[in-house]
């Protein structure tokens, strides 16, 4: 159980504590309406887990927050600033938003250490020595110190994903987005990644986690957002969601995944 299990409930949009605010967000892929009038506010220090069936739009929601997917209408603001259009300002904002991908996406032509140093040097303009020190301490934090000089392809999936988390943390982000971080992992490697994420949550990092890991949702989340067919169907505490879901859609979803 996480140490910050103080449940914050649903903070009202516009409070000082709001770090990520989505208002009336819509997104289409051709004829498919993948995000339908999404309103969501994530407070500083909050861990929000987004769950739902495949194709419900949860990954798109996650990617929209740092504009890897552009939205059709609505507003997204991070720390009070609306998401800028493509360009220098957007790059600056993305540096403040850490992202961890399903397929790790470590830079394949660079060593693990270089992967974690790159953003610090090129975006944060730190000098090499300082960047390397921070990179090494982050690699230690995620438990892959001995792999620092290897290339990503030489690491296991779990190790790669932990390096990817270190790479995102190196930017000192205000919020971390996790887009199904354990979905591409062998079962025995899922826990090592979840443990790193649990630790992050305990340390007070603001996190948006799209996942199928119900155990993680139960233990680390302050709030569960359940999505289906491009809408937020239910938004509540993990306890409430898993023991007493209100919507039929959520009941149906849980009945399919929990009884094995």
């Amino acid at each position, binding site marked *: 159980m996480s140490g910050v299990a103080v449940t914050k409930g649903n903070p009202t949009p516009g409070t000082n504590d709001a770090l990520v605010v989505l208002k009336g967000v819509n997104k289409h892929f051709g004829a498919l309406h993948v995000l339908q009038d999404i309103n969501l506010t994530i407070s500083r220090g909050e861990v929000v887990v987004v769950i739902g069936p495949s194709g419900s739009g949860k990954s798109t929601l996650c990617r929209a927050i740092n504009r*890897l997917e552009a939205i059709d209408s609505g507003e997204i603001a991070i720390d009070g600033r609306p998401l800028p259009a493509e360009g220098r300002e957007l790059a600056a904002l993305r540096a403040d938003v850490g*992202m961890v991908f399903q397929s790790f996406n470590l830079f394949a032509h660079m060593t693990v250490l270089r992967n974690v140093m790159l953003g610090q040097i*090129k975006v944060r303009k730190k000098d090499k020595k300082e960047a390397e020190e921070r990179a090494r301490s982050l690699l230690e934090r995620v438990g892959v110190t001995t792999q620092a000089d290897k290339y990503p392809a030489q690491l296991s999936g779990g190790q790669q994903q932990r390096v990817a988390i270190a790479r995102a943390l190196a930017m000192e982000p205000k919020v971390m987005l996790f887009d199904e971080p354990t979905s591409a992992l062998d079962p025995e490697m899922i826990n090592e990644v979840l443990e790193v994420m649990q630790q992050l949550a305990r340390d007070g990092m603001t996190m948006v986690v799209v996942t199928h890991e119900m155990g993680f949702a139960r233990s680390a989340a302050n709030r569960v957002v359940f999505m289906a067919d491009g809408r937020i169907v239910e938004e509540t505490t993990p306890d409430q969601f898993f023991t007493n879901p209100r919507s039929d859609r959520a009941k149906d979803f849980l009945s399919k995944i929990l009884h094995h």
Partner: protein
Amino acid sequence: MREIVFDFLEGYDLLGAFWVTVQLTVYSAVGSLIWGTLLAAMRASPVPLMRGFGAGYVNVVRNIPLTVIIVFTSLGLFQTLGVSLGADDFKTINFRLAVLGMIAYTSAFVCEALRSGINTVPVGQSEAARAIGLSFPQVLSLIVLPQAFRSVVGPLANVLIALTKNTTVAAAIGVAEAATLMREMIENEAQLILISAIFALGFICLTLPTGLLLGWVSKKVAVRR
């Protein structure tokens, strides 16, 4: 025996001619690599005007025969427009014009080889790069192009070999490279087959090691995924 057969070589600067071929190749290769990379960057860029220019350039230039381009540099650029590229003797002017023409032509092929390399880089690589706040030029120069180059060393070796042989077109504007000497020798000597064989061998000596070396480099730098 040997002296009698190869007698006719006396008085011809075979090495000198091939040295000019090598120089043409090296200058043109470096220039095409730079200009071709810029063209590929333009074609991958989000700016429509740049994409349009890159696509237009490649599609026009690669469809014009090299001979036409080389002759144009001499007749059009130099004799009509007076572009002499900072040289004042004909030998240097023609050499530089030939290099310019070679670069203009070969860069279109370098660009297309590189572009196919860019397509081998998974989209997640540039997404991850954008996600840590790198700008478009940084994403391209730090993440995408280094990986693209590694995957197209083989195709670029083909372009380089083609370029080496294409330098013979510079004979059309009187650059004293290997093909110019070959023509001169064929006119003067009664050794058609032998002369052709010597020049063929000369080019193989240049291109075969290039291909082997770059084939080795290609394996060496391949990105493991």
